[in-house]
């Protein structure tokens, strides 16, 4: 296992390098530079040159990349061109809100989808399965932000039980924090649950068709043993890698949800920066999001290996 983990971790390094290249050069593909994009044709040429020099945009692109990456590794992402603030602290300030929302949605989605998927898969073709399959099929067609709008209309406008948005730091007022977290987290959890439910269901179904399940039955094992110790246990490794991809999906889903519920996480920073062409922030956040995905999927893969000897002992 240790050897496997070491190899897997080592192979993610080039992946991260590739990511930094995409984050840096992808945004700079177009001719021109951020200063030109910001000031546009209205910019005074002298001022543009001055600013260019100040932000280092007059250097060769490759040199800019190296300087950028070296600084980024120290947590220094430069200064926002639009707000003149240090980007590192700006992100750090918003990071916890995003993570909190994601974790809460994750727990809600897993709480719905994993048991639902297992029950549906174990009763393939039965009434519960058909009901859950229909619900999740409809759910797949509903974007999370639209579900969020429905929730706002129902719970904030009609029932008036929760405000339509807002945020309170956990440290300042834990109860208010959780109250405001509830709706966005529920929306994101419910909206993404169908995806997870369907994957869980199909995994359970494919395991149920495995010959070792038929053999377990033929050996007279109890139904409970077959379901828990054989089917669910065998489905677990694949579920781990599914969860890895799923958390990535949640992170993307958090973007629209944060905007809708005015949740002060990274997404609002990101969308604002894209709209204003604040390249340094966009680059920093793409790198950060990318690293999060890579790390989460690495963790999921290691968890999968820990649960599946065929992967681990290769």
């Amino acid at each position, binding site marked *: 296992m240790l050897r496997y983990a070491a190899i897997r971790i080592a192979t993610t390094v080039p992946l991260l390098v*590739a990511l930094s290249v995409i984050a840096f050069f992808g945004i700079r593909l177009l001719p021109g530079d951020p200063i030109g994009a910001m000031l546009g044709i209205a910019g005074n040429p002298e001022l543009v040159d001055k600013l260019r020099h100040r932000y280092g945009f007059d250097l060769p692109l490759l040199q800019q990349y190296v300087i950028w990456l070296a600084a980024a590794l120290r947590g220094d992402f430069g200064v926002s061109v639009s707000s003149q603030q240090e980007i590192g602290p700006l992100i750090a300030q918003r990071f916890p809100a995003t993570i909190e929302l994601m974790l809460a949605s994750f727990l809600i989605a897993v709480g719905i989808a994993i048991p639902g998927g297992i029950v549906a898969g174990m009763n393939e073709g039965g009434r519960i399965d058909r009901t859950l399959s229909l619900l999740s099929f409809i759910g797949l*067609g509903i*974007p999370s932000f*639209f579900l969020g709008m429905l929730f706002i*209309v129902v719970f*904030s406008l009609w029932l008036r039980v929760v405000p339509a948005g807002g945020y309170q730091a956990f440290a300042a007022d834990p109860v208010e924090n959780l109250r405001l977290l509830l709706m966005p987290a529920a929306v994101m959890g419910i909206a993404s649950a169908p995806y997870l439910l369907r994957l869980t269901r199909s995994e359970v179904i494919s395991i149920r068709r495995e010959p070792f399940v038929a053999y377990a039955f033929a050996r007279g094992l109890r139904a409970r043993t077959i379901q828990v110790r054989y089917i669910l246990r065998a489905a677990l490794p694949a579920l781990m890698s599914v969860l890895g991809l799923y958390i990535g999906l949640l992170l993307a889903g958090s973007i629209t949800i944060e905007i809708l519920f005015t949740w002060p996480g990274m997404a609002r920073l990101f*969308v604002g920066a894209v709209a204003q062409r604040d390249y340094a922030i*966009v680059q920093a956040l793409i790198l950060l*999001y990318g690293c999060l995905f890579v790390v989460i999927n690495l963790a999921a893969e290691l968890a999968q290996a820990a649960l599946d000897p065929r992967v681990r002992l290769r």
Partner: protein
Amino acid sequence: MTFPASSQSLDARIGVGILGLIVVAAVAGPVLIGIDPNSIDVTARMQSPSAEHLLGTDSLGRDLLARLLQGARVSLMICLAAVTLATLIGSLIGIVSGYIGGVVDLFAARLIDLFFAIPTLLVAIAVVAALGPSILTTIVAIATAYSPTYARVIRGAVVSVRDRPFVESSRVAGASTSRILRLDIVPAIRPVMIVQSTALVGAALIDEAALGFLGLGVQPPTSSWGSLLSASRDVLLFHPGLALIPGLAVVVTVIASNLIGEGIRAAGDPRLAQRGAEA
């Protein structure tokens, strides 16, 4: 005893029916109602549905039905263009990577895997960041976001047919690579391509809506379902009924296209189509 194959094809027919209606509405609707979706009337802002404005008006007094129908045109067009582009790029990468193999494949497969792990909306937003929001950008952004997934599936399909006897025999007979790709490989993987492309339609619609909702998609005053949703956000608390309509249009269209997709997938999967026949 149920027969999934037949019920699936029924679902698919319902999907075709709904989607057909929506397409007809998008094509003929704007002409039929004859109201300019962009004509501003400040005296008639935020009106509720009436005989004159069947779905009411928005914050600038523009007719919502006209904007919804115009938006349907734009959204469906973006969706079609994005799916076509993703199909072309994805197939090209997948076929080249899968058929040629070697270093090219190693490199392409790694890159595809990297992109595969990153959610499509994020990739799309990054493309918008680089190109600036517009209709064309939305198309390119969605196509870029889904090409890796597409390429991944196609690559797998190509690898699985690459060394089959019929391809081998063409190779032995001295057929050129392009001839083999055209006459052997592409026909063999066509079912996979059809399933993938249909599956993309719903996803592309959702991402167009999400980009628009974030204000990063089609820009006002052009209406698309996405840009209408962006406007909805502001009036949600005042005119919830009207605000939800563009979203509803997206949901219905996505579900209809998913129904078709499921039907096609089921028809192509002998295990789904012929269950119960196994002895």
